[in-house]
């Protein structure tokens, strides 16, 4: 009797204005396991009912605001009255009855003893269970109603026809549903009654057979047969029926259901067809089609697959795809199978290397997907293609792929560019057509339908003048027939040359050579000829120029006196000869090897120029040789030149040098003779020199001996016997001595002079400062005696020359400068020098007696003196010696002077050596 578990705790709302009582009651009920809320008055109670649901209401009658009755009434109106118990004071049964009329379930009387408190839980319980029962009943009725409803809806709306038919006669429809009626094309069940059931069958026998079957089996399901619609057409139906027997055990009725399976049949047929198609595809496909389960065992495979792998169909079932694969691929295959199973399809294609039955290998590419049966995946179907061949060429392709990619890129760029251009508006297209130099002409039915402006102008007309006219008007008379024929044949669909040359006619009568390219096009819906015409006038001009040039070249080539021939450096083959070569060496040189054709040898020449020219040692290679074939001396200049195909060949130009060769030989012989003569002469000269040397030596030697005697004895006379002579006698003797002395000096100087330079000029580096110092040293005595000063303004340079010879010059010039002094003035000698690009000029300046300029030549002659010997001693050989030496060095010697004002003697020495007799004497 107590309340159920916590989760199903009964909720009670007690409306009681007596708070104490409320509390009491609440406690009591809660002890019984009820959840109790208290409302102090009717309004609060209503609010609380509003807020939440209660299983039971306990309502006190006497309450402020709303009495209990009012609460019940209100709630009853709203239909929100849960099981309610009226709590009323004693003696208020009327109220209770009213309350019950209003919908309360029961009442409790508050007795003064409080016994009602004990009762209350019971009442509550009772009320609740009653309520429950009511509820259940209601629900059951409800369900029944619903079920009836459903049943009715079902039978009325089910697309399955339900029926009961009788057997006898044709059978009658005892009962049927709407669907049945509709199925056969009747509006309602009512219309069915009259028709014999057999009429619903296309074949009456079918019914008989069907009944037999039902009789035999008691129940037939999904019997398919053709039924007849009211409108006369047949449809497929599937019947299920049960035999209902009468009391006599005989078949009395058929209860059954009939389904219109037309749609299904259609679908089935489609499916079958599709299956057929699929099968056909499967079997005939060139690609392999196969089916295997998730473990990899093959279920099916088409002929292509079997053939390629070398298996029979019968062997298929024992085959697993792992046995076909190479070990490295098995994991991938299993992985892919798993993927397909999970996702339903394979992403991308997979390549495998498969083992055929005979052990050889092929490459395939597969793509598979899952196939389902009733929505469940049950196998994997795949398509594979033999890519063995492809694999082979893949490598090759890879190589050219980059190239191709590049080209494609280029081409794509070009194409894109072109497309972009083309994508521009028609005006631009037109402008292209109108601006090209070539003529664009459309000819239809023999007349000019379109001609672009540039070309029209070229023909000397405006396009307007030409369009519409017969095109042959613009063709030269000589070509008219041909072009007309061509056009006619072209329009008739015949083949013909699409590019050819012809002659057009300008409006002014001039003919224009052209090249025409023709194509057949559709123009405004009809065939026409589209011609692109190129003016060949310029080209003809060029050709003419080229021809002329060639003629000139050939003329030059063949008329020049040199032989020209061209040789292939690899094969030695003569590629070309000019006529001069042919005349000299014989005809038919081309094609032969050069060593035979040109030189008459059987093997390449020793000094073959081909190699030299082509190893790039030099640009041209020249060789002189005697040519046996022509009997002439040739000088061959060979040079590498590019040939027609761009490769390098050797071009040789050979000059006949026979004459100059003879000349050369003469010259050589002549030179040799000359050299011989020179050598002989030199030897002779040298001999003569030596003779002269010894002659001079011995002459001087022998000449001087007597002088010694003359002088010696004269002096002895003077010394020993001088006192026996008078002054005059002594004077005579003195003069004899002087004479001898002078003669000795002359001989000495002459000897010296003659020796000068006979040994040639021994060039060395000479420091002129040092040389000047040496000369001064030599003249020290006379410098001291004369009180002379010899100085240098700035250091003298270094020159190239013969030291001893140059010393002679300095000695003589310095000696003269000191000797030829003015009596009253101590000699001052200054040596200076100046430089010129190719020589050094020295100057020895003195403050002596000077001399007249008119003696320039005389003074440098041998033995020429300007003063008597007793005034200025000397033999007159000094300047002559200086001159000899200076000139031997290739220089000059001269002086500048004024009598009484000193003299400056200059001598120049060239910087470079003089080409002369440099040694050997």
């Amino acid at each position, binding site marked *: 009797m107590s309340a159920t578990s916590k989760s199903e705790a009964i909720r009670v709302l007690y409306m009681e204005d007596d708070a104490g009582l409320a509390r009491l009651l609440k406690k009591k009920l809660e002890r019984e396991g009820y959840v109790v809320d208290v409302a102090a008055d009717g309004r609060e109670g209503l609010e609380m009912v509003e807020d939440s649901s209660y299983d039971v209401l306990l309502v006190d009658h006497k309450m402020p605001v709303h009495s209990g009755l009012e609460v019940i009434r209100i709630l009853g109106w709203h239909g929100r009255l849960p099981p309610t118990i009226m709590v009323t004071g004693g003696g208020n049964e009327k109220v209770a009855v009213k309350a019950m009329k209003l919908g309360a379930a029961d009442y409790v009387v508050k007795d003064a003893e409080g016994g009602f408190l004990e009762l209350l839980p019971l009442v509550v319980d009772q009320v609740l269970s009653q309520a429950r029962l009511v509820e259940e009943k209601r629900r059951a009725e409800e369900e029944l109603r619903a079920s009836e409803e459903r049943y009715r809806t079902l039978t009325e709306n089910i697309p399955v026809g339900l029926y009961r038919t009788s057997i006898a006669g044709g059978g009658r429809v005892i009962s049927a549903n709407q669907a049945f009626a509709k199925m056969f094309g009747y509006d309602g069940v009512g219309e069915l009654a009259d028709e014999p059931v057999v009429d619903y069958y296309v074949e009456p026998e079918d019914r008989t057979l069907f009944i037999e079957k039902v009789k035999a089996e008691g129940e037939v399901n999904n019997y398919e047969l053709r039924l007849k619609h009211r409108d006369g057409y047949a449809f497929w139906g599937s019947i299920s029926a049960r035999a209902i027997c009468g009391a006599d055990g005989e078949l009395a009725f058929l209860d059954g259901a009939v389904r219109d399976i037309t749609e299904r049949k259609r679908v089935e047929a489609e499916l079958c067809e599709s299956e057929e198609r699929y099968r056909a595809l499967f079997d005939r496909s060139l690609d392999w089609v196969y089916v295997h389960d998730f473990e990899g065992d093959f279920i099916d495979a088409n002929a292509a697959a079997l053939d390629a792998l070398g298996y029979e169909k019968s062997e298929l079932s024992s085959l697993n795809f792992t046995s076909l694969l190479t070990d490295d691929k098995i994991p991938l295959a299993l992985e892919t199978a798993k993927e397909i199973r999970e996702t339903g399809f394979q992403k991308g294609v997979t390549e495998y290397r498969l083992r055929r039955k005979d052990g050889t290998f092929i490459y395939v590419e597969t793509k598979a997907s899952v196939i389902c049966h009733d929505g469940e995946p049950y196998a994997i179907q795949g398509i594979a293609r033999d890519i063995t061949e492809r694999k082979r060429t893949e490598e090759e392709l890879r190589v050219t792929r980059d190239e191709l990619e590049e080209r494609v890129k280029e081409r794509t760029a070009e194409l894109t560019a072109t497309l972009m251009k083309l994508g521009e508006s028609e005006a631009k297209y037109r402008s292209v057509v109108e601006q090209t130099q070539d003529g664009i002409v459309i000819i239809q039915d023999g007349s000019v339908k379109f001609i672009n402006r540039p070309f029209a102008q070229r023909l000397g007309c405006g396009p307007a003048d030409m369009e519409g006219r017969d095109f042959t008007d613009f063709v030269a008379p000589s070509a008219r027939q041909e072009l007309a024929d061509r056009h006619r044949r072209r329009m008739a669909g015949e083949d013909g040359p699409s590019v050819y040359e012809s002659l057009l006619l300008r409006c002014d009568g001039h003919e224009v050579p052209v090249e025409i390219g023709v194509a057949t096009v559709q123009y405004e819906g009809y065939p026409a000829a589209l011609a692109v015409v190129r003016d060949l006038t310029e080209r003809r001009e060029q050709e003419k120029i080229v021809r002329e040039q060639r003629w000139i070249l050939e003329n030059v080539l063949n008329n020049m006196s040199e032989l020209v021939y061209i040789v292939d450096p690899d094969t030695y083959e003569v590629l070309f000869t000019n006529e001069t070569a042919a005349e000299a060496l014989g005809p038919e040189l081309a094609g032969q090897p050069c060593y035979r054709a040109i030189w008459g040898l059987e093997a390449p020449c020793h000094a073959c120029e081909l190699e030299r020219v082509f190893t790039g040692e030099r640009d041209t290679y020249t060789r002189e040789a005697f040519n046996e074939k022509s009997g002439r001396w040739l000088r061959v200049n060979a040079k590498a030149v590019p040939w027609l195909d761009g490769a390098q060949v050797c071009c040789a130009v050979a000059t006949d040098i026979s004459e100059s060769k003879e000349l050369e030989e003469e010259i050589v012989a002549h030179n040799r003779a000359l050299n011989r003569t020179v050598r002989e002469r030199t030897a002779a000269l040298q001999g003569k020199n030596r003779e002269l040397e010894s002659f001079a030596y011995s002459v001087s030697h022998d000449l001087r001996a007597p002088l010694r*005697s003359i002088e010696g004895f004269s002096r002895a006379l003077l010394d020993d016997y001088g006192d026996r002579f008078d002054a005059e006698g002594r004077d005579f003797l003195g003069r004899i001595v002087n004479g001898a002395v002078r003669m000795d*000096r002359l001989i000495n100087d002459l000897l010296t002079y003659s020796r000068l330079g006979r040994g040639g000029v021994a060039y060395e580096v000479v420091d002129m400062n040092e040389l000047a110092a040496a000369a001064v040293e030599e003249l020290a005595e006379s410098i001291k005696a004369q009180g002379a000063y010899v100085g240098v303004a700035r250091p003298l340079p270094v020159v190239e020359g013969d030291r001893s010879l140059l010393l002679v010059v300095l000695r003589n010039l310095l000696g003269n400068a000191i000797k030829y002094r003015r009596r009253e003035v101590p000699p001052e000698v200054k040596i200076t020098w100046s430089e010129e690009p190719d020589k050094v000029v020295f100057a020895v300046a003195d403050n002596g007696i000077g001399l007249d300029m008119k003696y320039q030549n005389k003074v440098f002659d041998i033995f020429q003196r300007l003063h008597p010997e007793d005034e200025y001693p000397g033999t007159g050989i000094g300047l002559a010696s200086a001159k000899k030496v200076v000139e031997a060095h290739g220089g000059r010697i001269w002086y500048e002077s004024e009598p009484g004002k000193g003299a400056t003697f200059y001598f120049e020495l060239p910087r470079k050596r003089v080409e002369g007799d440099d040694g050997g004497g």
Partner: protein
Amino acid sequence: MDANEAVVLLVEDDADDAKLITRALKKTTLPARVEVARSGGEAVAYICGAPPFDNRARFPLPVLVILDLKMPGVDGYEVLKMIRAGRALHDVPVVVLTAVRDAFSVSRTYELGASVYFVKPAAGRGFAEVVREIENYWLASQEEGEE
């Protein structure tokens, strides 16, 4: 004629030069007696003591030889060789006095053993100077000999 008298042998083919040299020698402290050989051959005869110089007492070996080089027949080089070959005159001072002055002759002369080489003076100088040089050389060599 004193056998102990020091003799200077002058080998000179030119008569004038011989006279002049002799005269100059007289004016020095060199030994007074001067024997003149007029050719190389004569010089060799004197040194060897061949006739007419076979009387050694009359013709003693010289203490100084003054030798010209350029002589017809046997020239000075020969004489010099001969002098230096023999033991007798091996150490005697030989003064070459010649007109020849080229370096080759000079070196050859010294090679052959000449003691000193003098060139005959040019005209105008006389023999006095060169003879004085010879005297100096002689005196110097005497001193050396005494040491």
